[in-house]
Every structure is written in C-alpha cells, then in structure tokens.
C-alpha cells in the first residue's frame, strides 16, 4: 500500500500543472454586501491554477483572456466570471442560504439536516478538540446525546463498548454498525485460543483504532429506525457513519499536526502501605517498602505526527495523509504504535457526468500487551498481582534478579518484563465508487470495497518467568486475517415539480466477511534465546479456523418533499444472511417517517422568533444479527486435544458441541420516535428533543436446553425488552461578534431499559464474579427489571464478632438465597455532556464536561482486596486488615455495589492561532494545550467509574463489572497545527 501511495503522487502532481498562453495579471477585491471577504477561492476553470483572497479581500492572478474564473466561498453562491479585457475585476458574492445549511451523511447518500426526518446527529471533527484520541468513536463521548461509551480497558487501542440508545440484546452484541466512507466494516475479532489456561488474556484490539482521527471529517450517528432501517438487519443497534476528509477544488495545502502528551493514572486504589502491613503482620515480612502500584504505573508519553496534502482542480481533487502515533500505556509493558497512510481522490469525467472516487487507507499497527487477566483464576495478571503483592517485598533481589517470594503471588514487574507479548498488523481499506448521471435526474452508482486486516500475535513467556517457568517456557504465534468484500450498486432518481420534489433510491448490495486464523502454541523450551521465533520445543499445538458469512440485500428509499412543509421518507430493505437457515434467510425491514416544517407554514410567516421548527415522526423495524456464523446448522468439530487413546493410537475426536436451531431469525427492534427540531432568536438557540420507544423482540437468546443435549444452552428467538428515552440537544451561540465567538452545547439522554419477557419467565444470571475463591454471578436478568441489574444480599454492617450482617428480607431469621434482592443497575439513567467553545482574537478555549447518573458498578476488585484472608501474604486495605483473621466476605452483596455516578472534566483546551497574514507561505499556525480526564467527581472507589470488563457468560453479556481493569489515563497534551 505504501508503495502505491508513492507511485500515485507523481501522477497526482501532474494534474496540478497546466499550460500557459498569453498571460496577464488581473487583480481585484472580493466582498459581500457588507465587507471584504478574506480566503475566497478563485480558480481558473478546468485547471488547478488559482489563488485565495488575502485578509483584506484582495487578490491577483495570472490569467489568459477568455479564461473563466470560478469564485467560491463557503456559505456563498459560487460565481463564474469570464475574463475580458479588463485588468481589475471586483467581485461581489451573494450569501447562499441553501449552501449554508448543514449537510449530513446518511445511509447511501447525504441530505440537508433541515430535511432530515430521522433522529440523527453529526459532529464535525474540525469543531472539536480531539485530544489524544486513538479511535474515532471516542470522539462521540459527551458530544452526542444517546451515545454511551464504556471502555473495556484503558490500554492504548483497547476495545470500547459503544451503546446507542441503551442495550438491545442479551446474548447477541449491542455494538452499532460502523460504516466508513460507505463501507460497512466488521469489527469482530476472535480471541486467541490457548485451552483452559488464561495466562495470555489481554484486551482485544479495537479495529477502529486503525482510523486516524485526523483524517476524519465528520461522524454521523443514526439513532432511530427511520434513519437506520436502510441498513436493515444490522441497524437495530444504531449506525455510526464515519466520513474521511477529501480534497477541495482549487484549494491546495499542506498541513502538519503534532502533539506530545504526558499521561499518568488518574487514581490509585487504597491499600496498606509497607508500614501498615507490618503493623498487622509481624513475621515473614521482607525488608523493603514497595508501592506495587507505583512500580507498574508510569508516566506515559504519547507522540503524534500527521502530515496531509490536499489539492486539486475542478476535475480532480485529492487528499493524502500520513500519520504516526506512538502511545505508551500507563501500565509498564503496554504500548500502541500506528503508522497510517490515506489517499482519497475524486475524479470527474464527461463534464461531471461520471464521478469516480477512490479511498484507500493503510494502517500498520503494533501493540505491546501485558497479561491483563480480568476474570477467574488465582494467578492473575499484572494489575491483579500489583494489588496483591506484599508491600514489604522488594522488586529486585540484591543480585539484581527479580524477587519471587511466594508461589501464588507473582512479581508484577517481573511479569511485565519477562513476558513478551505483542500484536502487529496491517489493515487496508480500499474502495472505489463510480457514479454516472445517466440523465440529469437519474444516476447510477457502483461501489466496490475491500477491507483486509492482517494481524499477528507473538507471545513468549520465558523460562525465567513465574508463569513460563513451570512449563519450561511457552511461545504462541498467531496469524489472523479478517477481510470483507463489498459490492453495491444503486440508482438515484429525483424529480422536482413546482414546490415539490421526489427522490428515489434503489439498490443491491453483496458483502462477505471472512475470518482466517492460525495459531501455534509451543511449550517446553531449553532456553529463552530464540523466543517465539523458533518454536521447536517439546510440545506443540496448532489450531486453524476459517469461516465466512455473507449478506445480500435489496434496498430502497423514497423521499417526498411537499411544498417545503411536509417531508415523507419511506425505506425498505430486504436482507438475506448466511447466518440463518435456508427457510429463514430473508427478512424485510421497513420504515416510514414524516416531518412537518411548521416554520414554513403560512401562519408562521409573521413571526421572527422561530427560525426553525420541525416536527418529526418515525417508525421502523430493524434487526440484529450479531451472532456466530453457523448456529442454525449441526456442525462437527474436529479437535486436536481431548480425544481418546485406543491401544497405542491417539484418535482425534469428532464432537458435537452446539445445538443447531434451523428456525433462528433476526432479533427485531421496532422503534417509534417523535422529535422536534428548533431554532429561535435568529438561531441563537438551536436544538432538538426526541422521545423514543424501542421494543426488541424475538431476542437472540441462549436459552437452557432440555437434556440430554450436547450443550446446556441453545440459541433461540425468545424474549422481549424495551428501551424508552428522551434525548435533548441544545446549542447556544452565546456570543457572536468579530472578536468574540462563544458556543455552548448541552446534550442529555435519559434511557430506561426493561426486560419484558424471557424464556419461561426464568431469570438469567451473568456478571461472573472473579477473585480467589470467588464463585457465582453478580447480575440478574429478570422480567420487569433493567438489564444489568445487580443481585445479591443487602449488606447491613459488621457485627461485634466481625461477621457480616445481611438484611433478612423475608424475616425468617435465616439468611439464604431467598433473601437476595436487586441491588442496583449498571446502566445509567442519564448521560450528559456540556461543551463550551470560546474564541477571542487568536485564542480559543474549549471545555468538555460530561457525566452519568443513576448507575452502579460492582467493584469486584475491592471485594477481593478486602478479604481478611489475604493477610498474611497478600496485601489488603484497612478494612480487610481489621477483619477477622482468615475470614471470607461474601462477594454477592451490596457492600461491593457502588454508586458510579460521576462528573468528569473530560477535555479542556487552550489554543492560540497566530496571525499569519504577513507570512504568505503559512496559511495557518496554532499551538494548543489540552488536559484530558483532568477531574473526576465520583463516590466510586475503583480506578474509574467508566468501566465494563467482560464478565459475561455464554448466555448473557454483563455490564458494569470492574475487576482489576486497566485504569484510564489522565494526560496533558501540547500540540501544534500548521498548514501551508
């Protein structure tokens, strides 16, 4: 890919040159009705030659007589002027109210925000302070109402959980669909399979971290069914459309962005210090004083450089960029490095009748991982061991070797150093689309795309390490390829008659997703010398997986605009998915929406309070098919291990492990949305308010299987849940003058989830409890409650004897299972964000404050740390140390369910843009400083209340469980943008 970029550059540069004839220089001034306009593009038609007006609106340009000047400026109507004999041409531009309107990207097209009938929100990357963002979806946090993001881990590049308008599913994923430049991408990545030994677990890499935030122009979130139904069986969880930047005709520039950030953990967990520890344990102690959290945490440095080139003439525009990011994690041994290149080219032929667009991006990424075991087991990962390690033990022995003093606590610093674990990969997303205007009102578009992610993982657990030693070292090599091919073709027809217009879209789409994984695990090495690069060891196990799924669709949309007052949108998508059995492969997903632009009614003509008032109503049905590939089919696994030895012959076993369900179908979400868009006082205040009700039924649910069966559960379409909510989005232009600009945005979403129906009405438990000796589950899914409800005993106090006292709910004087109650819920009632952007002269100052209310987190980390039985040998906190010796506290109680409401000062940025008018070559220069995650106000006692480790079961995902999760980073960032 990189070679391709290099090859294409000379070709592109050719477009930039043009032929010169009889030249002369013209000059003039560009203005509108009131003042001169700086920065106006003036281009000679058919070439890429042009200029830009200066600060006073003046320009000069070498032209030939007869050339046509194309004068364009954002917010104004473009003019074409033929050069005659004159040498001075003053140009007066007219404001174009149509053009000023925000255009939003929607499924298979764009539309004016004012004509939107669905609930959707768009953010422009240029208007937000990105900070040190490694992944585009993180930009939505606190900026778009109804989007909740909870990180799986604070490790650089780790997966995020993104929920739009709540959780829709129990067993299937609730992740939205991502569409990048028209290509729906697949983010499912398999986890390394090493048998029942969890010693290689670490966070999964977020596939979206391969999109450079600097390349993003806008992100649109489609929320209601009328907006998402065009994506049919994948639309139920919402859709996030990412559009990358492309070139602009007549505007060429080179930009360089760079930042350096310094980060640290925002918070440490309270534990006994070495001295405290000694006061409780008086024998067997070491002589050191070690704060193990300090030993594994560090100041993390992130550097980012990105360089972009953009330019082009009327027929060809391009934008190319190259970026480099190196982000250290706050835990030693973690790192993310990405290098990406992108080239977007637009080319038009036959007098703009044929438009071709190429987008190609390639990212090379690599991460250093640590063992970040999050569930089960007593050996634990690095953070777990740092919280467990005896603070009186030194990190190193006197001879400089790592100190290992106990069989069940590993020196976490040694673990980080002695285990080499990295992921490396290349992701290439390339697409080409061609749109041909057959008639003025009829166009045909063909879109082809290929997305290939080649990933490799390398692990070596050295003989010296506590986990590698007993098995004489372990090496793992994994090669994985995830790819997706897309072919789409669609037709657009539009018709205008008087004040009415009609547009119709119809198309076909074919998309296939492939996974191809091979891994080899070797144990029994004689030395550490060759690491994972030579796996000729005593034992080797190999594994391969290849599978595909295909989605074929027909879709259509009709937009009707009656007299600029009434807007009607109807969509229909028929999806066929290979994930379901032959009888149930095809599903139809319809939607309809109506909008009434009240402000355009005659009776509103005489008021000037409202500049916009639009009522939207929408209803539609969408699906969710985020399940494994062959759940309808009886499959036979050919395994390597676990088979029988007959005589002297080992025989590979064929086994049946899942129960096929040929009747499987999509999970279906019907959503009703009513919304109001408004703008008042000359758009000083704009905003929208939406109410929605989502009913998801035929839930894809792992239900208990009647026995005897080969599995305890099977997947069926059973159950129903609802999400009901309100979203508010308010923008206030507090100040708007030549010197002052101050914009405020407030967004808030309220959502309530309720389980309506489950298999036979039976409760489902999930949220697996982790920790030494822990068993059971912390969450219950119960009819009438919200998903993610915590369940257990209500903790009252510790009695005089040191025993935990729980509330006897049924007053039978016995505390047993019948005394368990709902203890809180992991999903917030309210998610909100407040953004402020203030600009004065060259200064800009931005703040993002966001928060969540009405949610709880199960602090499994604290539950484990507080166990009195940790002493002696394992560190605890004061509460644990003061408990009865060798006692065990119950994990399933409200004692560990904490209020996780919070307010975060997420981003605060101060920037200064230099006046570069006098420097002809420098278009723009800005310096800024950003602090991220600066202040958290919360009662939560763990590292961060925004946490969601994967503690689900095979039946149900879990929410809001924190067990030794990788902490979030707090950082200060210094950045520079310049463009030439």
């Amino acid at each position, binding site marked *: 890919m990189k070679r391709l970029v290099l090859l294409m550059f000379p070709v592109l540069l050719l477009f930039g040159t043009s032929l010169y004839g009889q030249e002369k220089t013209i000059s003039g001034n560009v203005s509108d009705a009131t003042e001169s306009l700086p920065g106006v593009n003036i281009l000679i038609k058919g070439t890429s030659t042009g200029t830009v007006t200066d600060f006073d609106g003046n320009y000069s340009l070498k032209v030939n007589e007869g050339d046509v000047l194309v004068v364009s400026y954002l917010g104004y109507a473009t003019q074409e002027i033929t050069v005659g004999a004159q040498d001075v041409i003053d140009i007066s531009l007219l404001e174009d109210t149509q053009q000023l309107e925000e255009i939003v990207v929607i499924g298979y097209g764009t539309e004016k925000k004012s004509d939107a009938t669905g609930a959707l929100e768009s953010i422009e990357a240029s208007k937000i302070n990105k900070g040190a963002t490694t992944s585009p979806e993180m930009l939505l946090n606190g900026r778009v109402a109804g989007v909740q993001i909870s990180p799986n881990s604070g490790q650089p590049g780790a997966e995020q959980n993104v929920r739009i308008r709540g959780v829709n599913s129990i067993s299937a994923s609730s992740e939205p669909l991502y569409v990048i430049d028209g290509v729906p991408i697949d983010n499912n990545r398999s986890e390394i399979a090493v048998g029942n030994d969890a010693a290689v677990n670490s966070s999964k890499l977020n596939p979206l971290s391969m999109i450079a935030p600097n390349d993003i122009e806008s992100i649109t979130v489609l929320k209601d069914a009328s907006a998402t139904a065009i994506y049919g069986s994948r639309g139920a969880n919402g859709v996030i459309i990412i559009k990358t930047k492309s070139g602009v005709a007549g505007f060429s520039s080179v930009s360089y962005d760079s930042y350096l950030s310094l980060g640290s953990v925002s918070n440490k967990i309270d534990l006994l210090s070495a001295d405290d520890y000694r006061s409780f344990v008086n024998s*067997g102690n070491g002589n050191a004083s070690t704060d193990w959290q300090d030993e594994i945490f560090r100041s993390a440095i992130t550097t980012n450089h990105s360089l972009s080139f953009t330019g082009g003439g009327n027929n060809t525009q391009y934008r190319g960029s190259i970026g480099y990011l190196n982000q250290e994690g706050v835990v030693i041994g973690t790192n993310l490095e990405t290098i990406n290149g992108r080239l977007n080219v637009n080319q038009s032929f036959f007098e703009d009748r044929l438009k071709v667009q190429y987008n190609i991006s390639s990212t090379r990424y690599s991460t250093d991982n640590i063992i970040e075991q999050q569930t089960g087991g007593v050996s634990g990962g690095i953070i777990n061991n740092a919280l467990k390690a005896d603070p009186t033990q030194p990190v190193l022995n006197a001879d400089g070797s790592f100190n290992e003093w106990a069989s069940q606590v590993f020196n976490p610093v040694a673990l980080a150093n002695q285990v080499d674990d990295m992921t490396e990969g290349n992701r290439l997303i390339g697409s080409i689309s061609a749109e041909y205007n057959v008639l003025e009102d009829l166009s045909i578009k063909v879109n082809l795309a290929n997305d290939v992610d080649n990933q490799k993982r390398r692990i070596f657990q050295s003989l010296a390490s506590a986990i590698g030693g007993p098995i004489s070292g372990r090496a793992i090599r994994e090669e994985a390829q995830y790819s997706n091919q897309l072919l789409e*073709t669609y037709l657009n027809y539009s018709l205008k008659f008087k004040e009415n217009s009609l547009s119709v879209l119809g198309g*076909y789409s074919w998309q296939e997703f492939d996974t191809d994984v091979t891994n080899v695990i070797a144990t029994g090495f004689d030395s550490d010398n060759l690491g994972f690069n030579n796996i000729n060891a005593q034992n080797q196990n190999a594994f391969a997986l290849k599978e595909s799924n295909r989605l074929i669709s027909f879709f259509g949309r009709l937009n009707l605009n009656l007299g600029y007052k009434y807007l009607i949108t109807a969509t229909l998508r028929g999806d066929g*998915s290979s994930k379901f059995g032959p009888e149930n492969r095809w599903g139809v997903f319809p939607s309809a929406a109506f909008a009434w632009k009240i402000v355009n009614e005659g009776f509103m003509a005489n008021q000037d309070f409202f500049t916009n008032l639009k009522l939207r109503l929408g209803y539609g049905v969408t699906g969710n098919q985020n399940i494994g590939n062959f759940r309808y089919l009886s499959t036979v696994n050919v395994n390597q291990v676990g*088979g029988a030895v007959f005589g002297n012959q080992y025989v590979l076993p064929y086994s*049946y492990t899942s129960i096929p369900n040929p009747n499987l179908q999509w999970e279906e979400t019907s959503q009703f949305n009513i919304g109001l868009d408004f703008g008042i006082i000359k758009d000083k205040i704009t905003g929208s308010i939406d109410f929605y009700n989502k009913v998801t039924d035929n839930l894809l649910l792992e239900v*208990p299987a*009647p026995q*005897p069966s080969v599995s305890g559960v099977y997947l069926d379409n059973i159950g129903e849940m609802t999400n009901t909510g309100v979203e508010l989005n308010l923008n206030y232009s507090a100040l708007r003058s030549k010197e002052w600009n101050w914009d405020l945005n407030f967004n808030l979403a309220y959502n309530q989830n309720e389980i309506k129906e489950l298999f036979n009405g039976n409760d489902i438990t999930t949220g697996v409890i982790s920790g030494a000796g822990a068993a059971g589950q912390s969450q219950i899914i119960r009819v009438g409650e919200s998903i993610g409800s915590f369940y257990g005993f209500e903790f009252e106090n510790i009695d005089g004897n040191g025993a935990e006292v729980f509330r006897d709910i049924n007053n039978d004087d016995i505390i047993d299972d019948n005394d368990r109650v709902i203890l809180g819920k992991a999903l917030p009632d309210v998610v909100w964000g407040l953004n402020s952007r203030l600009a004065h002269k060259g200064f800009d100052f931005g703040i993002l404050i966001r928060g969540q209310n009405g949610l709880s987190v199960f602090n499994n980390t604290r539950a484990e740390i507080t166990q009195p039985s940790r002493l002696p040998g394992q560190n605890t906190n004061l509460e644990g140390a003061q408990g009865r010796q060798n006692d*065990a506290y119950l994990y399933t109680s409200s004692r560990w369910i904490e209020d996780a409401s919070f307010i975060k000062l997420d981003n605060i940025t101060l920037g200064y843009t230099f006046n570069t008018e006098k420097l002809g070559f420098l278009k723009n220069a800005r310096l800024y400083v950003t602090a991220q995650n600066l202040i958290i106000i919360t009662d939560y006692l763990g590292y961060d209340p925004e946490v969601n480790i994967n503690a689900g079961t095979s039946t149900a995902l879990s929410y809001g469980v924190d067990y030794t999760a990788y902490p979030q980073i707090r950082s200060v960032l210094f950045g520079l943008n310049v463009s030439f």
Partner: protein
Amino acid sequence: MKNIINYSFIVSFLLFSVFACTDLEVLPDSQLTSSNAFKNKNEFLNGLSGVYSTLGVYGDQLFKVNETSSDEAIVPARGADWKAPPLQNLHKHTWQVSNGEINGAYEALSRGIAQANIFMGVIAESDFADDSEVKIMNAEARFLRAFYYYNMLDMFGDVPIVTEPIDPSDPPSNKNTDRTDVYNFVISELETLTLELPETNDYGRVDRYAAYFLLAKTYINAEVFTGNPELDKAIENCDKLINSSYQLSDDFSSVFAWNNDNNLENIFVWRSDSQTGNWGSSYIIHNFTLNQGLQQRYGMPNAPWNGFSTIGSFYRSFSPGDLRSYIFLEGNQLGSNGEQLFDRFGDTLNFTIDYVGDIDNATQSDGVRVLKYVPGGNLSACCFLNNDFAVFRFADVLLMKAEALIRKNGPGAGDELINNVRERAFTTPQPLTNVDLDELLAERGREFAWELWRRNDLIRFGKFNDSWEYKNQSEPFRTLFPIPQQQIDANPNLEQNPGY
C-alpha cells in the same frame, strides 16, 4: 455517443440487478457438517473418540458430587478459597434444588448421552451401518450411554429415557417413567451389549466384560433402585468376570500408577495421556486436593488448587500398616530434597487429621489429602495426568460377589473373597474373619477410597443419612439428588423427586 454510454449503463445495471447473486449458501470451512462428515470408514473411529471424550465427567462433576456428599471427602471454605456454599452444602447434606454442582453433574451426564445418541444416529444413517467394526463402535457408544444412564439412575432416579437427538422445542418428559423403568432400560441395554461387545478390545475401549461388570453393579443395587433384590443375578455376572482373563494386580498402587496401561485389574478405564489428550480435559482430582506448595514435589506444570481433603473418621478407618493408605498425605510435608514446604501464605505445610477450623472456615492445611493417582511421566499442560482412571476394576467384582453372599447367607459368607482382595494390602497378611455388612462397608471404603463408589455404597448399606464430621443426620429423601431446578426451568415437563 452519449446515448450509447447511457444505454449501456442502464442495460448493464438492469442486467446486474436481475442476475444479482442471491446465493447465501455458506458452509463452515473448519468444521464438518452432515454433507461431508462420516463419508469414510476411518472417521467413525474419530466419532467414537468424541463419545469416549465425554468420560471427562468422571474426574470432575461426578467426582465432586458423589465424593463430597459421602464420608470420605469434604471441600471446606479455606478463607475466601473454595468458599462456595453449593460445595459445602453437599457435604452437609443441605443441598438445595438449584445447587450448581448437582446441575453440573446432570448436564455432564446428559452431554455424554447426547454425544452417544448422535453418533449412533450417524451410524444408522451411514453406508457403514452393517460393517462389523463400525457395529462394535456402535456397541461401545451404546455402552457408554448405558453407563451414563446407570449414573443417572443412581443419582437422580427418575429421568427421561432418550435414545435419539432431541428437538429442543419438544422436550422429553419423565412423567410416564419411574426409577424402575430407567433400571429396566439399563439392564436390557447391558444384556444386549454382552452379546454385541467383543470378547476383547483395544486397551482403552470397552469389551463385553465392562457390560458384565455394570450388570453386576446394577443388580447389587437393585433393591435400592427398585425395591427388589437381584443378588443371584449379581453373582452370575461377577462369575463371568471371575472366569475371564481380568485379575487382581499384585501391587495395589500399580493399579493407579501413571504407567498403569494394560493393567489386568482394570476392566474399564478413563484413559488419560498428558501429551496427546485426556478424554475430556478435566483430570483434576489431584489439583482439587493438593496444596499449592506441593507443585514442585510432583513436577506439576501448574499450581494445584488446595481444596478437597478427607475427614478424620475416614482416615482413621485404615489400620496401621495398610499399604492402601499410601494415598494419604498427612502431617508435615517436605520437598523432594527434604526441605520444609510452605503454603502460599508462608505457613509450614502440615496436613491435620482433624480440622483446626471448620467446614466454613478452614485453614490452608486442614485435612488429610488424598492422592491415589500420583502424577508421573511427562506432564504437559495444566490438568492432564498420565494415569488412567480405573472406573471398573476387578477388586470390586470380588467384593460385590462377597457382598451378595453375605446378604444371602449371612456374615462370614464372603470372607474368602474379601481376604483375597485384602491380602496385598499388608506386608504380612491380616485376614478378616466373619465379615458382616458393616465391616464390608469399611473394607470397601479402604479399597475404593476416592474412586466414586462411596456414596453408592453408603446408600446400599443404609448409612448415607448418618451423621459424621460437619454433617448431621440427614433426611432419607437425600439418597437421591433433586432433579436440578435449572433442568426443570429448561424443561417444564420434568417432575421433581420426592422430598424436594
């Protein structure tokens, strides 16, 4: 020209749409389906291997439930470690219908039955249904299913009898069966299998003597299962084995050693090989019981889990000099070089006969540990041993026959058989005389400790509800486990056992 371009675009678009690919037939690439599995005869051996691999249940779920509900094993809460009321309740005989361990055993047995049913269904529909070797494989799968049903009969009593893959939307019922029907099913299956299974088979695969053994075992328990004793039939089937080439081994410990392959005492083994696989993946009894501090002594790649121990009264039922007590790890523990061993909290490792703490709050060292299958050979991953687990062994044949004789003819009638087995347990033989049922039960305890027979024995000898350490007298209905609530939730057609 422009029109030609236009029309060609339109035509190609329409052609494309009309002939648009709508093929959604995507099959697994790394798994087999009915369209390509079992097309060659040798694949049936793979299928059989898959059925045998379900035997892993024996060392895990069945072990936990059958052993800890008896007087020879206990899982105490050791601080936060192993603090799991379902496990402690098993020993206390206070389990509830939702006990996860009991459900685990039910599901694991069901898994084996289902795998066998599917495999037999595949054979019936294949081109090889009449092949003589494939027919033997069919009989082996059928035997394993009968073995799992025997365990269902023993533990849960009345369960639905299912002989083919079930449709989840039409779940089976046990309402029209009772425990006698399950008993009759097991007996009739086994009677047929004594004819269908071969006289000898590869080591690791069952022959007809496994069927004779299980018939004897079912008949000796007939009074418990149905109310009607079948002692003569038990003796008859024991005699088939006594007259076979199976025999007692001279050395007790060699029966369980890591290199116990082809030991003629073992009639039916759950075979395990640390390198190639382990018939399941749950050979974990040694992990259950050993303390973490013992990892190096046994050359184990991973630290064991320090859970299970025996109780004082059971330990004391062994007389001094009984070689069978090699299985106990008692008192202070030293490493292979004679160094002192410690638990993971740094305390000396010293296993106590009686608990210092109690079942709900024991110390790390409380309780004598039981290691019948001593790790050895080349050990690879976490849970695999090289020792083959003796599921059925010849010593039991002799003691079952002795028991039937005592039950028929009174104390002393089984002395010769009993002393036959007991002889190798002492350097100088210490024969027993006039052995009655109580003494036989104690002798069975010493002989078969931690081999999963104790619960069954205690019930048959009428002692299961007695009290012992950390267990009070329990209700008679507890001789059957409940049908797990999870199963009744999944299948409302099921009926709960009496008393629950």
